[in-house]
């Protein structure tokens, strides 16, 4: 039975784009009105991440994947909604209270060139979090742990006095992972950790992540746009569109029986390694920027099945027979 580790409910995040008070005033129909511009990056996300599973999040640029990751990690505060770690609420913590969770939850970023401090050697990069989270450790214990960690990510311990620029992209990403693992977390959020890497190097990093998951029963929230990686690596997949989850399904089910119109288009667009070009389902228009809080279904503007109800009412996630959940009126009404 799957045990929930992280539970997210009704999560919303709006960024205001004109912070200064002066820029908020507009003439509208002859009157001066106050108007705050904002981008609604998350519009009610409900998700559960189970212990030991990999939940992959997919979706186009700007749909809110990185924002979701940052909100879960407490790097930015949500506008509404709740996040629970086991049975504790963690979205309203002050810095002191957060400390405990910092150790349990770690993040790995897209760009291995930017996420490591260029002026710190690998040894310094790792010794800092290890001694911080284990104040009782002697220097020898810290050193021992660093050597062990580096070996476990395939970097020889003898190169611990080198700086990030002396390593290749894949090696740097493995060092980032070593840093995340250094505090023995339960949960790692990885935001596009492979996209700066070549396929051959992607394979190294993915293998490492799978090994560590097995060793430590780690849970991953894994953000990627590479559907082949998703198919290989995910336990379950959440498909996001404009700040909402529109389909959530076990990986095999999602790929064999995608349901939401957006998921279908997304899957038909994957370049596959064969020559019979399946005609991708063409989506009309491009991803809109969510400056207004959406009314109705977020996918309405590009959906071939949209009807009046889709413009008025937001579809709720409905559990299907095969274990997937989909938010779509057409499916609920049996039109699709």
């Amino acid at each position, binding site marked *: 039975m799957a045990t929930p580790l992280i539970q997210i409910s009704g999560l919303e995040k709006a960024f205001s784009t004109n912070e200064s008070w002066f820029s908020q005033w507009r003439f509208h129909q002859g009157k001066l009105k106050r108007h705050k511009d904002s981008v609604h990056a998350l519009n009610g996300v409900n998700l559960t991440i189970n212990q030991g599973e990999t939940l992959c999040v997919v979706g186009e640029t700007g749909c809110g994947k990185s924002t979701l990751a940052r909100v879960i990690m407490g790097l930015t505060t949500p506008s509404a909604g709740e996040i629970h770690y086991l049975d504790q609420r963690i979205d309203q913590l002050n810095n002191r209270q957060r400390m405990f969770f910092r150790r349990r939850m770690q993040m790995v970023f897209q760009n291995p060139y930017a996420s490591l401090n260029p002026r710190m050697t690998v040894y310094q990069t790792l010794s800092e979090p290890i001694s911080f989270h284990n104040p009782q450790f002697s220097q020898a214990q810290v050193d021992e742990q660093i050597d062990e960690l580096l070996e476990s990510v395939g970097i020889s311990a003898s190169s611990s006095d080198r700086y990030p620029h002396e390593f290749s992209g894949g090696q740097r990403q493995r060092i980032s992972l070593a840093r995340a693992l250094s505090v023995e977390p339960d949960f790692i959020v990885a935001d596009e950790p492979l996209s700066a890497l*070549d396929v051959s*190097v992607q394979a190294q990093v993915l293998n490492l992540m799978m090994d560590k998951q097995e060793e430590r029963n780690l849970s991953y929230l894994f953000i990627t746009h590479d559907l082949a990686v998703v198919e290989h690596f995910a336990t379950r997949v959440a498909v996001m569109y404009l700040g909402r989850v529109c389909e959530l399904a076990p990986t095999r089910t999602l790929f064999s029986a995608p349901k939401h119109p957006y998921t279908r288009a997304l899957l038909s667009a994957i370049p596959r390694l064969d020559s019979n070009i399946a005609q991708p389902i063409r989506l009309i228009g491009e991803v809109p920027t969510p400056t207004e809080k959406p009314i109705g279904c977020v996918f309405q503007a590009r959906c071939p099945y949209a009807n009046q109800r889709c413009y008025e009412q937001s579809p709720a996630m409905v559990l299907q027979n095969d274990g997937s959940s989909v938010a779509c009126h057409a499916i609920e009404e049996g039109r699709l």
Partner: protein
Amino acid sequence: MNLLSVSNLHVNFHTKERELAALIDVSFTLNRGERIAIVGESGAGKSVLGFSIVNLIGKPGYIESGSIKLENKELTKMNLRQLQEIRGKRIAMIFQDPMMTLNPVITIGDQLVETIRSHTKISYKDARNIAIEKLHHVQIASPERRFNQYPHELSGGMRQRVIIASVLLLNPDIIIADEPTTALDVTIQAEILQLLLAICRDNGVALVLISHDLGVVSKVAERTLVMYAGHIVEEGPTLEIINDPQHPYTQGLLNALPQMTLPGQRLNQIQGSMPSLAERPSGCAFHPRCPYATQKCREQQPRFIYSGVSSVACFLVEDMLNEFAEQDQEAN
């Protein structure tokens, strides 16, 4: 006659210590209307090759020797004015980042009009009509409105469409596209590739597609060149290369893809990484990463031979072929 033929091309980078070779003895041909792909890991030399074809390789890089012929014209011997003529009208380039080509402070419409009027003498109004028609052609919705917008007002996918429109205006014989969809989303990637493919097919334009994504390549290119450390190591029909790769490096690249192992299983990684120019290994440059490397591989450079499926530079394949030949002789 081939439309483009590159023979024995050597490109170097000049450094204080020594000359570093970025392309070594690269040869290939491109026919009219043909679509080829160049694949390989980052640092293999794909972009250097793309730039060299139009002699755009900037300092400290330079073409050391070799020939690049567009029909019967030798591009390596041309002066700047002649090259500019070729670059616009006969060979067009599309880059990963559309902003390398677009001017951020001029509306996209004016940029297109300027392109048209730089080589045809027509009025602004007529040029505007042609530009709008081309924007329509590349499936940009409401082109009249987009005409007056600046590049930053468009999404990445739309900018790449504008680039394709401007390339179309010049009616080139060859398009060189260096990772044209790498910066875009999957759904948009597929649309842009379809567009590029349709445009090349409909107008008989030849395409050189540079990509590190074999999935992308398999959809577009008829022939594929695999590069490693400045060499072409395998060349052949895309389908054959994907289904029956001969060179250990090509095999490694394909095997590393997640779809090559069952879900949840460890992926097949190629050990080690692409060497930098200064650290190129002796003999076959792939030998430190190759599971089949022998003493000969460390010492000598394999030559390019036809394996029956593709052309490959690898001793393993060469030795195998020799063995078959001997068996044949004995049988006779």
